[in-house]
């Protein structure tokens, strides 16, 4: 402390210009001119009065204007929203501007001075606090009885276990779920909009079809969907695919993938290997597929290889073939987990 003070004094001595002190207070027009004062008073009261008017108009708008499915009626927003927001906003602004005008024109504008104190407590308070604390610690005997202290610490730490264990039922364990999708041998690849089955001749070269497994549209004997609700969304988040047709000569299939397509038609997972967005921006000429979220780009003519962007792995390919009726079906499930990476991904049990 004393060092600091000494330093301060030293610095003060070197100040090139002495503090001239607070400038003299100059009166405002409203302080000296009763006409101006009256005028300011009227301004403030007018603003407050306007606020009441707009508040009432807000209520009028609430009851008189229709809402409903026409959000584009007025300014693209719906007449009700525009009127309510406009009137409410003006009612609030009038109060705010009035209050500030009042404070600036009519309330005293004499600056006042308060003195600061160091944030620290005075030394005697500190001494007393420490003495009190020491008495408390000594009386508790926590220092003299390490057995009590350590067993208490142990008990507290152990109590953390139930707190963590109780969260166990937040969700099931992942198990092998991420490794599999609903795709299976012989499952038809269908249009994602209406569930229509697809034949190779339905597709032209350069075409991309957003597709899904047929089971998403299947119904049981009672006419109920086989998969619906949450289960459907969960299945979709892994099983969504895209079907593309390229010129067979353009395709550079890996040796073990030569029979995974039909005449230049290939099927890939639609779920990005980066963080899982559905990918569907298709560049016909280059056979590139771009993810709209983070722009990872995959070359579908080259086994779904990443050619740009933050994705770290190629897009998984679904082996397809034709069924007896000539519709496109899956040969099997995906041969690797689809979607974003996770720690134990490479050890997934794919059988």
């Amino acid at each position, binding site marked *: 402390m004393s060092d600091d003070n000494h330093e301060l004094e030293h610095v003060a001595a070197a100040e090139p210009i002495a503090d001239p002190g607070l*400038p003299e207070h100059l009166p405002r027009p409203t302080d000296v001119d009763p006409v101006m004062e009256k005028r300011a008073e009227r301004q403030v009261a007018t603003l407050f009065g306007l606020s009441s008017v707009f508040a009432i108009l807000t209520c009028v708008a609430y009851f008189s204007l229709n809402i*409903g499915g026409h959000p584009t009626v007025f300014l693209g*927003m719906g007449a009700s*929203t525009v009127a309510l927001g406009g009137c409410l906003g003006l009612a*609030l602004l009038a109060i705010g501007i009035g209050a500030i005008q009042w404070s600036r024109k009519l309330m005293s504008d004499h600056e006042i001075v308060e003195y600061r104190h160091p944030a620290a407590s005075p030394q005697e308070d500190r001494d007393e606090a420490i003495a009190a604390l020491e008495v408390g610690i000594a009386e508790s005997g926590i220092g003299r009885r390490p057995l009590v202290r350590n067993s208490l610490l142990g008990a507290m730490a152990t109590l953390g276990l139930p707190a963590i264990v109780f969260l166990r039922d937040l969700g099931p364990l992942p198990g092998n779920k991420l490794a599999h999708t609903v795709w299976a041998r012989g499952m038809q690849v269908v249009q994602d909009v209406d569930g229509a089955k697809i034949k190779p001749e339905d597709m032209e070269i350069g075409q991309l079809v957003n597709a899904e497994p047929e089971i998403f549209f299947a119904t049981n004997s009672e006419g109920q969907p086989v998969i619906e609700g949450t289960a459907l969304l969960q299945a979709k988040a892994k099983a969504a695919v895209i079907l593309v047709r390229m010129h067979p000569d353009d395709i550079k299939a890996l040796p073990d993938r030569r029979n995974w397509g039909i005449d230049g038609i290939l099927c890939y997972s639609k779920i990005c290997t*980066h963080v899982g967005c559905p990918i*569907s921006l298709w560049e016909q000429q280059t056979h590139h597929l771009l993810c709209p979220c983070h722009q990872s780009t995959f070359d579908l003519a080259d086994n779904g290889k990443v050619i740009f962007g933050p994705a770290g792995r190629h897009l998984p390919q679904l082996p397809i073939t034709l069924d007896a009726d000539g519709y496109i079906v899956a040969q099997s499930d995906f041969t690797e987990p689809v979607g974003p*990476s*996770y720690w134990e991904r490479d050890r997934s049990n794919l059988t």
Partner: protein
Amino acid sequence: MSAPAASNGTTPAATAKPNPAGAIANWADERLGIATSAKKQIRKVFPDHWSFMLGEIALWSFVILLLTGVFLSLWFNPSMGEVVYNGSYDQLRGIHMSEAYASTLHISFDVRAGLLMRQMHHWAAMLFIAAMLVHMMRVFLTGAFRKPRELNWIIGGVLLLLGILEGFAGYSLPDDLLSGTGLRIADGLVKATPVLGSYMSFFMFGGEFPGDQIIPRLYTAHVLLIPGLILALIAAHMLLLVYHKHTQWPGPGRTEQNVVGYPMMPVYAAKAGGFFFIVFGVVALMGGLMTINPVWRFGPYNPAEVTAGSQPDWYMGIAEGLLRIMPGWETHIWGITLSWNVFLPGQVAPMVLLGIVLGYPFIEQWVTGDKREHHLLERPRNAPTRTAFLAAMISVYGLLWAAGGNDILATQFHLDLNTITYFMRGAIFIVPPLVFIIAKRWCISLQRHDNDMLLHGYESGVIMRDADGGYSEKHLPLSEEHAYRLTARNRDQVYTGVSGADANGVEAPNARVDQLRARLSKAWFASNVQKPTKEELEEGHHHAELEHEHEVPLEGHAADGHQFDGRHDVVGDDLTHKH
């Protein structure tokens, strides 16, 4: 109302008619003892400066969020149960969707003022986070985080983080296609966590993504957990602010020992209270006139669909940018997968950034060795290294923000997406150091300019012609007030360190760390320009006077240039600038 008691007459004030306000105050004080603290706080001093309003905007936005949020919670149904929409909005009628999305549509189209409140809530959230960020920059640039306010800086930093989490949880609730895509990305981020990723994801979503748990869970976080924490931290922030008292700009009569300004009652109550209504009014106008998050256009969430050009709320932009420009690095080794491409930008980088922000006051204090209390603000130019550091950080922020919209930039400006991304990957390392150097030199130039003005006066704009036909500009001295303002700052002291070994040849403890500190301190301060000493100032004035004499007779009179055209007599003219 009874007349105020007058005690300058013969009757004592106490006999005046008791007024009802006094009775209430008495009732309250007999139970709460509030007069002791109220006597100081009622006339608490608030210094005046426009930049002190920024934190207030954040505070008032939060109040608006609480008010509009309560309104929305009366109708919002945080459930992922599937329903068929049957409300007023034609285009979505008959479509399967979650109850969360259906109730959001209900609020927007079938509850009067519902859409207004939704939009006000969203705008206020944007404003809340923006105001916190700008307030934080103001605190940083003026050195208001210095001792004794470091803890309040940390509280503020945590508030900003909580505000961002709260915003993310909030815009995920409607369960529309855009917010679902955001959650899908969050799922990818969580899955990339080493060792625990897939487990964390399953626990978070109550099973496989998307499950039927995440919306109710986010709702609890959004309306209870995070707002509770924010409220508690705001209370702590305000209490510390009252305890430390406000910082103020140096100036005549404004010192480290005092605080000068207007009293809370009545001036600041009116100003701050009025400002609440202004912020509220502006948010209401925004909610009424500017569409935000039109979830009805996006449709319900479907994990097989996404919209091109999907963008998160603005404050997630830098996280989005980091994720987009990160190269696709992934390590597969011993049967494990390490997604550096997601883990580094999504989890490590935000933590590092937060660490730098929260730790900054302590880093600066250690380097500068400045352990004094500071209540006077510093002009940004007078802390060139700090200012340049923030400028560099702003450039990082701006680049990442732009990178987060690389697809939008590409389509709007007809640029190549890949080139933008490659550019950003390099720029993020090259631009900030350049910005740092430029900003630092800029600050130092401004410091030199201040000294020039102190020593030689300011440029009057009056051009003088001397006997030889040469021209020069007349400089005039600054007003005393202005000159004092420029000199009211500390001299920087470079920490030189404990010299290598003492007289007995014993190395000082921690010599290495100490040398590092000395080197950093030198880099921090050494090129700063210090204010002139008293002697330099006197010499400067003396010099100016001499110059004056040398140029007699032509320069003998401060002149406007017309005085030497022989049209009128110049004797007695005084053109010294008057304030």
